[in-house]
């Protein structure tokens, strides 16, 4: 995958340097969200069940309508993940996934959707010979990754990584939790680039049957910030996506529901989960769009739901 901006995918989405509403220059990531609003952001764990399969799965999600793709680089101590993604990470580690092979995979991918890497801070620190974030960021930029998400790196500790990302033109996405408030919220929103990852509820990642009303409250207090907001943690169905977009999100993040599909198909055959992932992406994207429609109808009498 090259870092050259591409314009026009097969579904007409726009990637790469677009134009911000305030006239500034958006990043690949931010553009992908703004221009495909409501955006679908998909997560799978790289190397589950193998890096070869991951390549196929990324392309399937891309075809299915994912506007951004997060790839998990597995770390042995995934403290922010629920059981589904923990299990995927373990499968990936058992398959021998390494950061070097991960980067090689990404380097060979050709997707419309920009790709972000999601990993824990220690993986970033250890890529070079010393504990230093720069070699990782440099390599990430080289292979065409557009951004980084680090579940165990709060804004307060992100100085070195923020600087390295800025130097290499990568977005650094921060998470906004239901407990994030006041000065800290301001600080995070002033440092985030790409999008704000809005955590729908407390706890770890994982598909859940309903979407919290906390989502609405969470988004309401973010309206004053200009950066795109995407909501994750617990989204598994098109209707969830619709609800979230209806609540004001610019994008919907789906992870565990996709990892479940990968897990269900196991390691038999040649990327056996690809078709199902593509279909799920389509369902979710459609759901998100439905939410937009509802959202725009916000001020009109509530329409009948099908």
């Amino acid at each position, binding site marked *: 995958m090259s870092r050259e901006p591409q314009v026009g995918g097969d579904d007409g989405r726009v990637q790469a340097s677009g134009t911000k509403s305030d006239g500034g220059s958006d990043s690949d990531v931010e553009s992908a969200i703004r221009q495909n609003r409501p955006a679908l952001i998909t997560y799978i764990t790289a190397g589950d069940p193998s890096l070869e399969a991951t390549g196929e799965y990324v392309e399937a999600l891309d075809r299915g309508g994912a506007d951004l793709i997060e790839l998990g680089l597995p770390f042995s101590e995934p*403290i922010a993940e629920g059981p589904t993604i923990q299990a995927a990470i*373990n499968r990936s580690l058992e398959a021998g996934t*390494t950061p070097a092979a991960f980067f090689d995979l990404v380097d060979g991918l050709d997707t419309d959707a920009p790709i972000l890497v999601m990993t824990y801070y220690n993986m970033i620190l250890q890529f070079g010979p010393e504990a230093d974030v720069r070699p990782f960021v440099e390599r990430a930029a080289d292979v065409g990754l557009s951004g980084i998400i680090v579940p165990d790196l709060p804004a307060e500790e992100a100085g070195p990584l923020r600087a390295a990302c800025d130097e290499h033109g990568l977005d650094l996405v921060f998470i906004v939790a239901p407990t994030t408030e006041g000065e800290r919220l301001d600080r995070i929103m002033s440092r985030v680039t790409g999008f704000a990852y809005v955590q729908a509820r407390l706890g770890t990642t994982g598909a859940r049957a309903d979407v919290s009303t906390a989502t609405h409250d969470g988004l309401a207090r973010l309206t004053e910030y200009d950066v795109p907001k995407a909501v994750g943690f617990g989204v598994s169905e098109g209707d969830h996506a619709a609800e979230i977009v209806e609540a004001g999100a610019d994008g919907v993040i789906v992870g565990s529901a996709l990892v479940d599909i990968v897990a269900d198909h196991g390691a038999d055959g040649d990327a056996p989960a690809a078709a199902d992932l593509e279909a799920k992406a389509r369902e979710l994207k459609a759901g998100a769009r439905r939410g937009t429609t509802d959202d725009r109808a916000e001020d009109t009498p509530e329409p009948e739901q099908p």
Partner: protein
Amino acid sequence: STFGDYGGQYVPEALMPAVQELEDAYERYVLENEDGFMDEFRRRMREFGGRPTPLQRADRLSDRYDRDIYLKREDLVHGGAHKLNNALGQVLLAKYMGKERIVAETGAGQHGTATAMAAAHLEMPCEIYMGRTDINRQRPNVYRMRMNGAEVNPVDAGSGTLKEAINETMRDWATTVETTHYVIGSIVGPHPFPKMVRDFQAVIGQEARDQVREATGRLPDSVVACAGGGSNTMGTFHAFVPDESVALYAVEAGGSSLEIDADAGLAPNSATLSTGTDGVLHGAMTRLLQSDEGQIMESHSVSAGLDYAGVGPELAHLVESGRVTPVTVDDDAALEAFHRLSELEGVIPALESSHALGYLEHHHEDLGDLVVVNVSGRGDKDLETVLEETEKRDLEAAPDVEVFDG
């Protein structure tokens, strides 16, 4: 919030407000004694916990090594180890903070039992996460926690030991953070945990420093303590850090070898300070046992209580700055030391503490005329392990225990 380059607050965003709330509470209650928190803590440690613990001259070890050996007897703290110093402090703090529930991880079960005792004492609902493997090999400690009314939640992930239990406790905390305090078991984790746990444990060294001066009229030449996560270590060292004449030895578990098997993800030791590299785990930048890629190793020690791939950031800093000397004692030498102290002094030490005593055996000539060794806990909990491991090895110091019916 750091010790040199070590420490910090590397936690999920959802936990940051809680960590900051705790930081505030730590400063007010612990550092400034607001509402008399520290007075109540000290009173309860005296009346409930049995402090102060004695500093005992070990007559037979002193003869053996031809120098004065003093033992700080943390094995006499309620529950059988120094762990209560911290657990009681944190559970009490959780009460002052208005929390309604506590969670904690445990490996060998010592921190879990201490937390369960403290929670019962202070009437605080308590859940303990414990790896499935540890549950099955530490049943008596599971019983004790249940007897104290704590829930014990088995963790099936990974190898089912301490690392996984910590991960799972952090997940619980991230979900329930508004009403729940996480009672971390060592001087690890995000700031303010390493400082706060150290402050609760610092009573060990404060007492020992006063006691050794009262007994001998001077400061010791060396202070020796075992180091896993490092709470007994820093608790013992803290008061002596400014005393530059006092050498401080952190004795890590050398396990069966100091070589790492990176392919298998295994370190057959827990010698983090001696052999580890810098990285971030469980909320802090510190020394870790990790692969070149940054994956955390499964550590190993005959002492489950030392069996952890990280170490407190303050210890990492004191080692880097040269104030603390990290050394290792392997499984065999620790087992020999367990038997030696039991037989010579009538004190059955924890296998953790046996590492400190093993260092004394092999390096006493480097330690000067007056040595303080911290006996961080009692070894009753380790009897089965010691018997099994001793039998495997045919150690000369070991007694024959076959007095049972065939």
